[in-house]
């Protein structure tokens, strides 16, 4: 079975830069760019949904693409 892949969508205007998603992403997809998160390594996303679940600001959506 191939590993799941995900696509991270960031709604920048909602992001308050709390860093929770960056910290709890197991494959280090995300990083802070000043005070807004960005997907620095989008190809590493395994669609585990941790960032979406934990984002307090409704600023991250993850869609499974594989």
């Amino acid at each position: 079975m191939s590993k799941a892949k995900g696509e991270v969508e960031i709604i920048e205007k909602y992001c308050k830069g709390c860093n929770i998603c960056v910290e709890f992403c197991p494959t280090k997809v995300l990083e802070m760019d000043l005070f807004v998160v960005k997907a620095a390594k989008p190809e590493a996303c395994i669609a585990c949904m941790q960032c979406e679940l934990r984002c307090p600001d409704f600023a991250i959506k993850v869609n499974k693409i594989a």
Partner: protein
Amino acid sequence: MAYDYDKSIRPGKLPHIWCPGCGHGIVMKGLIRAMDTCELDRDNTAIVSGIGCASRLPGYLDACTLHTAHGRAAAFATGVKMAKPEMNVIVCGGDGDGTAIGGNHFIHACRRNIDMTYVIMNNYIYGMTGGQFSPCTPTGDKASTTPYGNPDPIFDISKLAIGAGATFVARTTAFHATQIDKLITEGIKHKGLAVIEVLDDCPTTYGRRNKFRSVVDMMKRLKDISVPVAAASKMTAEQLEGKTLTGILHQEDKPEYTAMYKEVIKRAGGAA
């Protein structure tokens, strides 16, 4: 697929007012998922709150929402539920709102076992007014009104609810995102007063004063102090020192208040 929160949130209301890293948003997401799981008809659902950061939650949700006065959410909600028992009633608010100024309404809602789900976000502090100590601020901690450390003992909200007669009491934390919606779902399905205490973080007014370096530190602490009820039964008192039990802490079947009142109507010869 990404979870569709948008259909539950009123258009144009995001971003919300909560500070960066505040867990209330995580709880709100959990509440939305639980309401979806229970397929609650939003037209027939009242979400009632008091005053404080957590009490701003209802305004974001597409339902019949009632943002009341400080501490009074449970009493307003009781009026809604009594007058229209067919409505789903969810109460939400913070620790100060629910157990200090609203403590009397809280314990009596528990005692009546009226069919409502009370989601209480315990972030150990009065956040909106700038970080004064609440009945849930740990003894010794710093708040804007305890500059020398808090001399007060705390309320254990879940124990308070159980003691007052709530028939479903559960606890989780803002770290345990998936458990939030599972427990709220159980609470909504439960017939009677359900209390779901969510230990939460206030990085702005509690974390800063109490040596948490970051939001992430606060989240990690919530993870570290939590012990599921089942696991706790196999642990020694020493191992449980400083830990908090999570999961369903109490559940029992008891007559529900509006059902009891239907019997009163019957005895009086009226038609409900």
